[in-house]
């Protein structure tokens, strides 16, 4: 049996046709508003007027709707099934957030509106900053960065500005072997050399190696805690003092904040700069790869360098009136802007709604259940398939854990990739695979707090079924999936002969 119930429908398996292949000459969805002013010729200088209009589709509104609805059905999504993609925190996206973000007072507010007429937005942002500062245990926040990687870049540039202000020019940034790929890539863009720090046998940072590599040329140590191995590094305080004694900053990659809210705070661990992933911890829908937002929280000594503009609250001179919120552009030591305007406000609205819905107790519950679910799933998997898919490090985990598929490969002849592809036939999204790089045949599993015990059990059953099936016939998994709109795709071919756009006939249709 290679197929499972619930396979792709006939529509899903049709040859893919793009919107550019649909329609016919003269079809349209847009009806232009009337030209209500006198028409004047020659308003665009010779040579600057477009000679040949761009070949956009010619389609009716019903065609557009059907095309994209059908395309949507060729996607797997979190609302349809389990999505334990490690390090991505695929938790439920409350629809209240979409409703409030769409209110015209938020959605149709112009970013350059006079601050006196955007007090609701500025107050929301200010309150969100206060909440994030409290969660991080650091006093100052900038909401501006657009994503985690953008927050990281902000952190590296802040570090550079901090040292420059002290008359220092440092050259290196340390990252552990288990770091997200964005960390080293960011370091390069920030103009520093990456120096890797080894892990100890428990999966934490090797303190001896850290000591050996920390000198007066080190600007920063970038760390995720819990790490990408799902382990809380208990030596973080010692790391902080090693790094701080050398005059460097300590940067916290907040990708894994979902594990510790209400239990521990990066600021209390000694971090100087923290980024949040509002699309991970705080339920901004992932949108197929974005948008997100990556606000940063920083310590007192980093504050002068924060991006502009910075939000300020001005108490009214007469006690009766409400405080006024404004944007401070006059920040002489600021690293400057990282992007246009004030950041991804639509994401802030959703995050704020989430924090107001849950409160302190609810956020702590989030982390508790995230860790409970992960440990339960780990225990059940060890019980069912522990021999073939053992835990890479330690005994327990925080909100996620890493299994190694090395024994599975050796004993049953299927790779982690095959296991992942066979999971697709079970109607589940696979975990993150082949990351972190320090684990052979890695599977990084993060169930999140919003899944039920029944879902976790069903995942264990699916993994156990695939392992049992592989013991009988490994070819099944090696050629999976079978029930999806397409089967395994030729990725090497795609990279070798890149076709990155549709070819369009000038007079198509």
């Amino acid at each position: 049996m290679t197929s499972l119930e619930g396979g792709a429908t006939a529509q899903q398996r049709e040859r893919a046709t793009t919107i550019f292949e649909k329609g016919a000459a003269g079809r349209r969805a847009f009806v232009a508003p009337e030209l209500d002013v006198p028409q004047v010729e020659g308003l665009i200088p010779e040579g600057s007027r477009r000679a040949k209009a761009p070949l956009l589709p010619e389609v009716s509104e019903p065609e557009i709707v059907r095309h994209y609805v059908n395309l949507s059905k060729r996607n797997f999504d979190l609302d349809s099934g389990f999505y334990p993609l490690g390090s991505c925190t695929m938790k439920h996206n409350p629809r209240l957030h979409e409703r409030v973000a769409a209110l015209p007072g938020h959605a149709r507010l112009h970013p350059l509106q006079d601050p006196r007429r955007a007090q609701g937005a500025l107050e929301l942002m200010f309150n969100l900053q206060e909440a994030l500062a409290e969660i991080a245990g650091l006093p100052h926040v900038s909401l501006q960065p657009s994503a985690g990687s953008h927050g990281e870049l902000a952190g590296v540039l802040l570090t550079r500005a901090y040292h420059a202000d002290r008359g220092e020019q440092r050259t290196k940034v340390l990252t552990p072997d288990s770091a997200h790929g964005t960390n080293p890539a960011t370091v390069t863009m920030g103009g520093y050399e990456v120096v890797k720090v080894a892990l100890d046998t428990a999966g934490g940072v090797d303190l001896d190696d850290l000591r050996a590599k920390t000198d007066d040329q080190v600007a920063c140590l970038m760390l995720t805690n819990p790490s990408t191995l799902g382990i809380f590094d208990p030596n973080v305080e010692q790391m902080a003092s090693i790094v701080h004694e050398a005059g460097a900053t300590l940067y916290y990659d907040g990708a894994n904040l979902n594990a510790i809210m209400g239990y521990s705070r990066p600021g209390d661990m000694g971090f100087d700069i923290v980024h949040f992933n509002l699309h991970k911890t705080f339920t901004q829908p992932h949108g197929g790869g974005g948008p997100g937002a990556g606000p940063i929280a920083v310590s007192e000594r980093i504050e002068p360098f924060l991006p502009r503009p910075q939000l300020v609250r001005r108490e009214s001179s007469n006690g009766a009136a409400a405080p006024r919120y404004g944007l401070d552009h006059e920040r002489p030591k600021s690293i400057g802007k990282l992007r246009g305007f004030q950041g991804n406000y639509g994401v802030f609205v959703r995050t704020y709604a989430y924090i107001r819905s849950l409160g302190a107790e609810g956020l702590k519950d989030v982390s508790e259940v995230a860790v409970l679910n992960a440990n339960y799933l780990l225990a059940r998997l060890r019980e069912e398939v522990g021999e073939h898919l053992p835990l890479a490090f330690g005994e327990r985990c925080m909100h996620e854990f890493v299994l190694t598929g090395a024994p599975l490969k050796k004993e049953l002849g299927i790779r982690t990739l095959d296991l992942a592809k066979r999971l697709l036939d079970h109607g589940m999204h696979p975990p993150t695979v082949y990351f972190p790089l320090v684990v052979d045949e890695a599977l990084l599993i993060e169930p999140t707090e919003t899944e039920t015990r029944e879902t976790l059990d069903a995942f264990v059953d699916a993994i156990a079924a695939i392992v049992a099936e592989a013991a009988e016939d490994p070819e099944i998994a090696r050629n999976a999936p079978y029930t999806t709109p397409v089967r395994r795709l030729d990725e090497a071919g795609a990279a070798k002969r890149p076709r990155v756009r549709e070819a369009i006939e000038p007079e198509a249709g």
Partner: protein
Amino acid sequence: MSQYTAVTPEDLQVMLGAIGVGSIEELFSSIPQALRLQRDIDLPPGQPEQAVFAELRELASRNVSSEDEITFLGAGMYDHYVPAIVDMLITRSEFLTPYTPYQPEISQGGLQVMFEFQTAISELTGLPVSNASLYEGPSAVGAAAYLAKLSNKRTRHLVSRGVHPDSRETLQTLAAGYGTTSTEIGLDEGLTDLEALREALSDEIGAVIIQQPNFLGAIEDVEAIAAAAHEHGALVICAADPLTLGVLEAPGNQGADVVVGEGQTLGNRLDFGGPSFGFFAATEAHLRRMPGRIAGETTDADGRRGFVLTLQTREQHIRREKATSNICTSQALNALAGVIYLSWLGRRGIVEIGELMLQRTHYARETLAALDGVHKLHDRPVVREFALRLDAPVDRVLDRCAAAGINAGFALRRAYEEHPDGLLVAITEQRSRADIDRLADVLGEAVAAERTATEATV
């Protein structure tokens, strides 16, 4: 249990039993006592959904949005109509809730959207390759300058003062990291000063960065600028408003090597500045240096057409410190809104909407410049936006207009100190002739009133 978690007391017992611990706290035992928060986080208690809705609605009510006034405010983001099908399609779970398409077999919808988006951007910009989007406009300009540095290793860039002030500042912020410097080329009567540019060019210049139309609404001669830059082997980076590219020549057809920009005008709402998307298109030679995600066409094991994320050896998760960028986000949902919008506009609509903006901009400019105390800041041809000079303090004039329900535009002094009483006025297809006439009445009265007030105090 909160509203989004589901552990019953019975679940808890079963789960703790399976794990082999007595309590949830035990699971946190790897956190040293000294690092445990010894109190609750200091946040207000959680609220039921209806209370949170009410609070967020109340905050919204204290903003004056484009729904509440007739607005001519632009300067980088514009109040265009977003068709209903955009809202309907981008809120579908299948687009809203998945992540980056790491498993292409179950992500063909999203990957094909990226491929279609890349096609549309390529058509608009006149360049053969596009990525699947970046964060937003100004940081896309910064990403383009980094590509230029990777490409020709030169570290000096020239940037026109007609480029959006946020883009110029973002460029500076990011350049502090990757080690380029930029020199500003001033404006001559609203356009990038071609003479000054030619003088500043040398074989050490890695890139020339311009904007079309520029911040003052003027139509740049991209061809002349590109020719001058290419004589010295510098790349030409052009930030463009995609919604004007039905009537303005595609910068890629005029010699630009990289065309980037802010995509908000394509079916994305204002959202007080974001999220929207940035786009990034380039000549073929730069394909393997581009930042961000790229979707490519391929076939599956049965020979069926399909799409994958491609050229990933550029990217951070493979190349780590040797990656061409640290960006792993595409603004996929916003880019989806963009490609739906472009399909909705269609081949004729992109020209019609550009023509409408062109004509109404001309009408508005002539009508306003005819008012007493109101002058054109420059005479250059414009589309979608134009700059005025007032014989009255611009902030006070704006306040008077706001009191009459009109947002008259952007006070240029916020970004151009050389224009203390400059006003930048933006036109979209939502601003009718009647709206423009109303602006003329209100602005005329406001300027007159302020001039009287100023004379009275003298």
